[in-house]
């Protein structure tokens, strides 16, 4: 007989099921075994992770090239709005560390952002495939469209830099 004040939760059997033994005391019935279906570890949402990476890349680019702060901050704020729509919290957003651009010069750094936006637009569009609820499809379509629109906006920025930067 277990100790009167014992409270124990035992989890086991990752592959075949878990057994939970819940509390008991002297005047409580014998512990009851409950079968719990195994659950796969929750995978992070690829779109949300990608939005975090975009925000980090923009933050890094703004730090490296403050002259681009205006346009890049506007686009970065839009990615923050996308991330919130996908479930990010203010705490999540506050914890994003900047990713410095690979390029030391501004023009190739903008090209890096264009590539990231192109990949993001593709990922978001691909994510609308399959059995999803209508609200998710609508949200991903809006975000995919927004990210596609960042490409010509950044191309304009790059054109404005001329060829020598």
């Amino acid at each position, binding site marked *: 007989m277990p100790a009167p004040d014992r409270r124990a939760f035992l989890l086991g059997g990752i592959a075949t099921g878990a057994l939970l033994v819940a509390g008991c005391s002297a005047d409580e019935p014998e512990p009851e075994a409950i079968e719990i279906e195994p659950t796969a570890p929750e995978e992070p949402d690829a779109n949300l992770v990608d939005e975090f990476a975009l925000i980090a890349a923009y933050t890094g680019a703004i730090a490296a090239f403050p002259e681009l702060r205006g346009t890049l901050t*506007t*686009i970065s*704020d*839009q*990615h923050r*709005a*996308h991330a919130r*729509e996908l479930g990010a919290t203010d705490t999540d957003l506050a914890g994003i560390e900047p990713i410095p651009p690979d390029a030391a010069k501004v023009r190739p750094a903008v090209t890096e952002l264009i590539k990231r936006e192109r990949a993001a*637009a593709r990922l978001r*569009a691909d994510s*609308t*495939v399959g059995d999803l609820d*209508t*609200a998710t*499809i*609508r949200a*991903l*379509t*809006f*975000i*995919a*469209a*927004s*990210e*596609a*629109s*960042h*490409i*010509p*906006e950044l191309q304009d920025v790059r054109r404005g830099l001329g060829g020598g930067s």
Partner: protein
Amino acid sequence: MTYTDPAAIAAIRDAIRSEQNYVFACGLAGAQLKGGGRRRAVNQLADRRQRIEVLAAMIDEAEVPSTPPAFEPPTPIDNARSARRALVDLNNALVGTYAQVAATTEGDDRAIAVASAQDCARTAVQWGGASQAFPTAA
């Protein structure tokens, strides 16, 4: 696939009407634009007519709205600036229209709707609009 779900039919009909209006607007805008702007407007006439055909193929022929005899733009198109502004707004409005088509269709048709939404948002920026987190008409 021919959709019979009323929500899908309504969304597709709405997209067809919006594209028909956009074709009219391109014609009106083209008259006010010069050079590259006019060429782009003319090119978009053909692109959007083709898109209307793709949308029309998704529903029964009887459900396809006929081309209206004219289109009154929400704001007058009477110079190059207002022409660009109108094309920005119509494209941004189409993003939401296509999001609804995407939400009510499936497979390749959904992919077409998403790609169209992306194209409209991109085109709005190319006409001089600013990008938006969730593109919508001003």
